């Protein structure tokens, strides 16, 4: 079983490096791409695909730690990405474990649901409740953001699923 543990560590290191690459892409390149007044946001997609591939516990832990990174480099509010990505990872992992096959359609839909859920909670807690914005702003920002991000989901999905297939599940030894 020792070799399985070693493979698991390498897998999570690779997942982390892939996430860092996507974070650089998000903050350095995609943030400059403005269509309909918004930029795509691929970070919830990363959480969704990993949670779908690895399950709820791993998805929650991965979501939490990449959320800490996002909170450090994406202003303005600390801790919000860590908590939301943890919940998204746990929720998507739990649902896909029980109900859905692990394929592109599931990954695609989970990505969009993850982004929508993230936007709704983020907006309601930080903008709607404190009175900094009105409800119609949620639709004006979230709808085009989800549409734009949908175009980026295939590239994110292929990259992360390649990692999952290459290293498989370290506990069972099966490849997903």
């Amino acid at each position, binding site marked *: 079983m020792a070799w399985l543990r070693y493979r698991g560590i390498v897998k999570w290191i690779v997942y982390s490096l892939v996430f860092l690459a996507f974070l650089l892409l998000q903050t350095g390149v995609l943030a400059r791409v403005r269509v309909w007044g918004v930029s795509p946001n691929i970070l919830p997609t990363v959480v969704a695909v990993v949670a779908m591939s690895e399950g709820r516990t791993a998805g929650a832990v991965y979501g939490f730690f990449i959320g*800490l990174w996002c909170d450090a480099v994406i202003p303005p509010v600390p801790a919000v990405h860590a908590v939301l990505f943890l919940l998204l990872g746990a929720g998507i992992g739990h649902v896909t474990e029980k109900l859905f096959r692990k394929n592109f359609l599931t990954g695609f839909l989970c990505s969009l649901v993850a982004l929508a859920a993230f936007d709704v909670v983020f907006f309601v807690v930080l*903008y709607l409740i404190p009175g*900094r914005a009105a409800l119609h702003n949620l639709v004006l920002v979230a709808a085009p953001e989800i549409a734009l991000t949908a175009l980026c989901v295939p590239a994110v999905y292929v990259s992360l699923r390649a990692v999952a297939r290459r290293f498989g599940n370290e506990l069972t030894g099966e490849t997903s």
Partner: protein
Amino acid sequence: MRFLLKHKGLLAAAAAVLLAFVLAVVSSLTGGYASPVSNLLGTVFQPLQSGIAGLSDSIASLYGYMYEHDALKEENERLKIQIAEMEAAARLSEASNDENERLRQLLGLSERRRDFVFESATITERDASNWASTLTLSRGSANGIAPGQCVISEAGYLVGVINEAGTTWSTVTTLIDTDMEAGAFVFRTGLSAVVEGNFDLMRQGFLRMSYLAKDVDVKNGDVVLTSGIGGKYPRDIVVGRVTNLYVDETGISAYAVIRPSVELEELKQVFVIKSFDISE
């Protein structure tokens, strides 16, 4: 508690949420300085971000050169005319300055001075979120940058205020963000008001000047500057120009939409005012 111990996943999730909450509290208690975790992660990430930002800027410049050449040429001609007009105005105001100086001496008033201490910084990240208008800079507390300091462009236009400072990086809340608020005045009339960010206007790149009377004397094109009230922003920093005047939601007062003088999308370098001393 027994329930949590039985369900280890829930226990781990609760611990993670608690940790995140503690980090958020630490961050708020540090008065705008980054928490240790954020500072470490941001410091590690910042060199990579600078590299990507440089590459993106190069590609954007190349794109601009290839596809916007005619527009740039036209803008160049327009700016030459504008410079000539401003030089003429400057020559006229020089005479007024001389007279002002003579009158100050006559009345025994001390010389008006503006002493600023600047720190220059490059922008490594812009608008990382669709919900806020922020910039990340390549300098931090190691260079004397602190939360609450004013940030201006090379031309002296208001960019925003330092929101959070790490060791080697800092983030700026720009003047169009919903968290932005500053005392201001209209240069032509001296009318005092407050400029603040608004979510709808932020997405269009504007901000608003609020608390105006319905019959206020404000015209399109009026220049708006900071008033210095509150002490956060030095006085006489150019904010922007009025584009339109509207009656607000209450129907009792009015507000003006301001186009910022700074071009946030084109900014590459900014100056942080670390300290200022204005003597009148």
